[in-house]
């Protein structure tokens, strides 16, 4: 057997492939993944385990007239059939969402979206459970649906949420940021104002692993073990305790290996709750794993923002102000996951990377007969929508002013000396130095040469486009004074133990869905205390094993948990100093640190390594007053601010003038995420995010027909990109550390997903300039591109 240590060093990994600390190294988790030895929820098999399946509504809006489960119950392998009225009797028919709304676990009164959960069958095997669904007879009284968000507030629109006391319309919230009067004044006197409706269509995170759970309720001691596909095991446990009445100390949530999350696995889905109910009812463990269509049709979607954008500038290209009003389609239940104070997430970062005189935005959320969700798909709490809006608007302005879009951006960037920068909607950008990043991307692209090539091609009737996007991300939520989810502050804990032999275990509250935490977090500890990452075990994803914290989403693991881990390692290092001093019979202040070891100032040969100190701590060394006999520590980190990674992306496309087919020829991505812990993992995150971005720009779209039928319910209809649609990524970087993060790191998980769609769309629109196209909405499928060429662009909703 080859073990990790036997792997040949990879020359492509660079000089530092076995770093004691930050640097390029292969991922510790990969040997198990590449060998197919990952352990996912669906791999869990418990003795006596039963299987659940969900009956889903075939229509988008209908009153439930009756359910007859007799035949299903008569199936020889069926143990239970649970309906909404059964749950009602238990007080579990409705569950709170992460946005202070409620969501039906099973339909009691009315179906509100196609694919909604109607009944739950528990059977001896998966096949029987699925077969029995066909034996349940349901009668529906079909109602007219609200499909188009623009019509949700029409006076005669059907009221979707008549379950809510006093509800007479489909309005959820109005929210605003910035100063309206100030912004209107700037607009009124500006030389140039351009406006554009920009739609970010509904898309889906579509992780490779669908959602699922195995619930194991022990009726003797009342203990619930819940294996779940979750990005936030601790938050889920607390919510389960609050909803189910099972005390929190009797609940253990385990999130084993997770096959991709992208926000899809933040929320609590009815299926998880039903698995728990199934286990309580039958007294046996119950597994429920959804299929692909269930995942696409019923779990958390992303985006669905209709944005009216306006940008004001002087005629020589000084951008003055931005204004937007957004109509947000939240589906049938308001189940987006975001800090409580911000119903539109961090959308108000829509001022982007530019120094503006004023900005104002309003967001109105409405209910429609579509699946609930909203914040998902690597969006950094709606920064994706914000960046798309501003980066499209800047391009449209450039066209209007007949300025080069790179030039226009360079002219308007927030300057290095303005950081920390307070924008007009209440953010304080921690650090930035945008121009060198932009210039590097242009140099890598050969920007001027590309423009020359484009000019020549245009003369020959060929369609080539160059698209730029410069984004500022807003990640690492967040300071507890401002940010909580259902009252839980967005902090994260970390515990570090150095074993007597100098090996270590670090326990963290965030859970990896592919981000490489087992490597990155080991490297953070390694950097601080100087033992190799191979000697540091990272434990995560099990509430019984790890300290409390809010989980992995919004690119918060490194900014929040990474900070916690660095600080806990520093705490251990400080403690080691005292123990080393005792061992060396000197004073702590006479010791000096070099990576891995404390030594006597002026006499480097006399010192103690971390391993020696650990053994000392657990051994018989007489410890100083107040120092207990271990080399362990714990912290909970409350970030003082968010971090603001940024980047410059350039995309080159060729469009077939005869068919409208778009080929992404090149993509240059220069990212600045502050201190780089493991550049290989960073690049991997960027490659994945760029691929996501190309997917959204060119093909991804959850479409509905007039009746509210979901037309994106399988991978035949919901297209996601493959290696064939994407070019060889050309990545570069600059480093502008975060001033408030212990190691200066900013987070990289979502930068590329946030930053790349506008680059691709800007490139497509640029290619279509000879046809007078100023804007087209995603997805830029061949048909939609061709329609744009005919002067018939149309919104995707």
């Amino acid at each position: 057997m080859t073990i990790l240590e036997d792997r040949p060093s990879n020359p492509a990994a660079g000089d530092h492939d076995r770093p004691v600390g930050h640097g390029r190294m292969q991922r510790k988790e990969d040997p198990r993944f590449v060998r197919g030895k990952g352990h996912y929820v669906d791999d869990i098999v418990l003795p006596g385990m039963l299987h659940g399946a969900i009956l889903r509504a075939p229509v988008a809006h209908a009153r439930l007239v009756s359910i007859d489960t007799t035949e299903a119950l008569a199936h020889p392998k069926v143990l239970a059939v649970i309906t909404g009225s059964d749950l009602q009797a238990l007080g579990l028919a409705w569950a709170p969402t992460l946005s202070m709304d409620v969501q039906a676990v099973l339909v009691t009164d009315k179906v509100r979206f196609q694919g909604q959960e109607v009944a739950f069958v528990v059977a001896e095997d998966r096949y029987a459970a699925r077969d029995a669904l066909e034996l349940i007879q349901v009668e529906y009284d079909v109602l007219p649906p609200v499909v188009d968000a623009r019509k949700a507030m029409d006076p005669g629109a059907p009221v979707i949420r008549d379950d809510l006391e006093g509800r007479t319309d489909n309005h959820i919230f109005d929210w605003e940021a910035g100063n309206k009067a100030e912004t209107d004044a700037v607009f009124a006197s500006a030389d140039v104002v351009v406006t554009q409706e920009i739609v970010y269509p509904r898309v889906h995170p579509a992780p490779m692993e669908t959602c699922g759970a195995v619930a194991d309720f022990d009726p003797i001691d009342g203990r619930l073990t819940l294996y779940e596909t979750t990005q936030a095991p601790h938050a889920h446990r607390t919510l389960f305790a609050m909803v189910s009445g099972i005390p929190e100390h009797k609940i253990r949530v385990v999130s084993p290996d997770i096959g991709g999350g992208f926000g899809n696995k933040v929320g609590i889905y009815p299926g998880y709750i039903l698995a728990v109910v199934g286990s309580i009812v039958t007294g046996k463990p119950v597994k429920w794993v959804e299929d692909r269509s269930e995942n696409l049709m019923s779990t958390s979607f992303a985006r669905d923002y209709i944005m009216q954008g306006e940008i004001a500038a002087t005629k020589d290209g000084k951008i003055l102000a931005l204004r937007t009003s957004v109509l947000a389609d939240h589906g049938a239940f308001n189940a987006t996951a975001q800090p409580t104070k911000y119903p539109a997430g961090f959308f108000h970062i829509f001022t982007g990377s530019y120094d503006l005189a004023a900005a104002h935005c309003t967001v109105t959320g409405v209910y429609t007969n579509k699946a609930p969700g909203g914040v998902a798909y690597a969006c950094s709490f709606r920064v994706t929508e914000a960046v798309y809006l501003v980066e499209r608007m800047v391009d449209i302005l450039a066209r209007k002013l007949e300025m080069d879009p790179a030039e226009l951006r360079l002219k308007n960037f927030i300057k290095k000396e303005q950081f920390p920068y307070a924008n007009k909607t209440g953010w304080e950008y921690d650090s930035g130095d945008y121009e060198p990043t932009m210039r590097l991307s242009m140099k890598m692209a050969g920007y001027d040469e590309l423009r020359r090539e484009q000019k020549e091609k245009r003369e020959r009737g060929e369609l080539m486009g160059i698209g730029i996007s410069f984004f500022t991300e807003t990640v690492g939520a967040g300071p507890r004074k401002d940010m909580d989810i259902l009252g839980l502050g967005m902090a994260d804990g970390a515990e570090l133990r150095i074993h007597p032999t100098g090996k270590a275990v670090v326990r963290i509250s965030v859970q990896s869905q592919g981000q490489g935490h087992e490597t990155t977090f080991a490297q953070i500890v390694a950097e601080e205390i100087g033992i190799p990452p191979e000697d540091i075990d990272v434990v995560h994803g099990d509430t019984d094993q790890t300290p409390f914290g809010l989980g992995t989403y919004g690119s918060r693991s490194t900014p929040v948990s990474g900070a916690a881990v660095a600080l806990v390692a520093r705490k251990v290092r400080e403690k080691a100093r005292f123990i080393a001093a005792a061992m060396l019979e000197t004073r702590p202040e006479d010791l000096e640190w070099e990576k891995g070891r404390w030594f006597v100032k002026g006499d480097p040969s006399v010192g103690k390594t971390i391993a020696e100190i650990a053994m000392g701590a657990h051994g018989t060394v007489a410890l100083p007053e107040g120092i207990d006999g271990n080399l362990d520590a714990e912290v909970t980190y409350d970030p003082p601010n968010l971090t603001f990674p940024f980047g410059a992306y350039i995309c080159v496309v060729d469009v077939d003038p005869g068919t409208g087919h778009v080929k992404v020829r090149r993509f240059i991505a220069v990212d600045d995420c502050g201190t780089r812990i493991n550049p290989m993992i960073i690049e991997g995150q960027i490659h994945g995010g760029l691929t996501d971005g190309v997917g959204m720009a060119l093909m991804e779209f959850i479409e509905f027909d007039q009746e509210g039928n979901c037309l994106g319910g399988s991978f035949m209809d919901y297209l996601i990109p493959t290696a064939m649609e994407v070019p060889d990524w050309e990545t570069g970087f600059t480093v502008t550390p975060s001033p408030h993060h212990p190691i200066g790191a900013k987070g990289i998980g979502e930068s590329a997903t946030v930053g790349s769609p506008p680059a691709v769309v800007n490139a497509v629109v640029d290619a279509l300039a000879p046809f007078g196209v100023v804007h087209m909405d995603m997805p830029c499928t061949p048909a939609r591109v061709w329609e744009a060429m005919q002067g018939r662009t149309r919104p995707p909703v």
Partner: protein
Amino acid sequence: MQIPAPFDYVRASSVDNALALLDRHGAESRVVAGGHSLLPMMKLRLARPDWLIDINDLFELDYLLVDKDVLRIGAMTRHTTLLESDDIKRLFPIITDAERVIADPIVRNRGTIGGSLCQADPAEDLSTVCHVLEAMAVVRGPAGERMLSMADFHRGPYETAVAQNELLIEVRIPIRTGSSSAYEKVERRVGDWAVAAAGASVSLDSAGTISRVAVGLTAVGLDRNVTEVEAVLVGQAPTEELFTEAGRLASLACDPLADQRGPIDYKRHLADELTRRVVRAACRRAAASVSEITI
């Protein structure tokens, strides 16, 4: 995991055995070849056969051979085999063109020409290809073998002349000198079914005049060749004007539906654009094979 309705399964050991099994298990039995059309439909419970008769052990139907002036392709020949064949590249580049854009390598490694033709999906590429190449289908049943033209074999969307108790055994394609062919498809993503596609096969005489032409369209509501094009092109020397006319006729002949892949006018436009492209490419290739002609 998507779960099909209950079914029974049996592996056939020979063509005769498969036919006997189809007979024995009756109306609700189906053969499974590559399974890449049938299994997805079963998982979505759109197809629910009681019996699956697996014909993947029928290696005797997995062959490709040039037999005098006919290319014979066994029904169990996989897409990948067709894609990688040098004989095909030389004789019928339209097949190579089409195979390159049929699904993805995983599907192509399993999916068969027999399954493709018997599925007769309106967006299926090899049916168009076989129409254009004037292929013959060899079908065997309890009463013996019959040979059908594509026009007789292919009855419309999801419908063929193959009866429940019959098997498609072989596809025969006539080899003609001075001929070549081409296929082009527009898809939203690699591996996606066609938004629209077109195929053409052309024979040139020694003077470089078009002596025979066939044009077919995929996914635009036409289950036959665009015969209108033949009438106009045959006897003419290939020119851009002629290709344009072919495109125009194709766009008139088709009858597409609007769907998520695109509106009707776009699909008509593609029928035009792609027809022009494939007729042009087929003429160029044919001319190159008759080396003295250049166009």
